[in-house]
């Protein structure tokens, strides 16, 4: 995909607050904690988690995250991604709906809100994955 040739929109404080509040709510509802835990339980490798994180932090297109998860699921012969893919995809669709709600009818704002929500979402998942993974390793000792 070509690089977007336009400047990224600047979000106003009200929009930033709406993003933060939603990310806080996600954390409190344990949505991201549970999936981070599940990723550790199915023993996804840390490199796979970092790949997902790097993609989310660097991509300009939200659907690239969705397609990454679908692709990983499609090629996973060990059957780990298929155990978590539906939950991840469902959460991403919910983020997309929330971004449309926050961005109202402004496509540029919606585009940027989607990116910010995805970044906050993945940060929470990754943090809990590494916490759960290290706990699991300690328990094994």
């Amino acid at each position, binding site marked *: 995909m070509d690089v977007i040739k336009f400047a990224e929109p600047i979000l106003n404080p009200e929009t930033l607050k709406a993003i933060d509040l939603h990310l806080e709510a996600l954390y409190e509802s344990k949505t991201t904690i549970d999936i981070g835990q599940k990723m550790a339980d199915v023993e996804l490798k840390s490199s796979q988690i970092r790949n997902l994180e790097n993609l989310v932090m660097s991509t300009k297109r939200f659907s690239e995250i969705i397609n990454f998860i679908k692709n990983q699921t*499609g090629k996973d012969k060990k059957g780990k991604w298929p155990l978590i893919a539906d939950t991840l995809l469902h959460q991403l669709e919910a983020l997309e709906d929330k971004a449309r709600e926050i961005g109202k009818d402004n*496509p540029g704002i919606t585009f940027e809100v989607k990116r910010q929500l995805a970044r906050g979402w993945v940060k929470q998942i990754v943090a809990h994955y590494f916490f759960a993974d290290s706990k699991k390793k300690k328990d094994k000792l």
Partner: protein
Amino acid sequence: MKTDLLESYSFYLLQDEAMRKNACQAVDHFLKVQQPVKNAQLHAIPPVMQAKGLSGLRGLIDNQKSKNTKKENKKFWLFLSDLILSNPGPEFSLRKFLLDQPQIKALLQDETSAIEKKEQKKIRKANKAIVDEIMEYVLPVYFEHFNCHYFYRTRQGA
């Protein structure tokens, strides 16, 4: 005008959301009515498009259709031919999807505004050229959606 559209946020969101849904619907429709093909069939698409664009894809589809190959492979390439090359194509075809978008409709001239047939033909040709150019632009993302959803659905047992 066309460049403005292609570089706009609304068009970017269109590729990200509505076009993704359209590509996923096409995959779901195919898997509902046909036997799945091996992933290797789909792996051929992105490099051909990257190298030669829409004309390369047209060549690949025509070539695969005429090959003496498995029946399910043939059906898959016939399906892609309908989806991408036919004009306007079935309900879920890419061209039909693009033509239904108001921001694309706004770029096209009304054929009926011309009285002479020769002039109408000229408008039709110009409109087709605009849609072809937009298709050329969106095809890599379209097939990213299509292929990834296909791999996902077939892995989940479709």
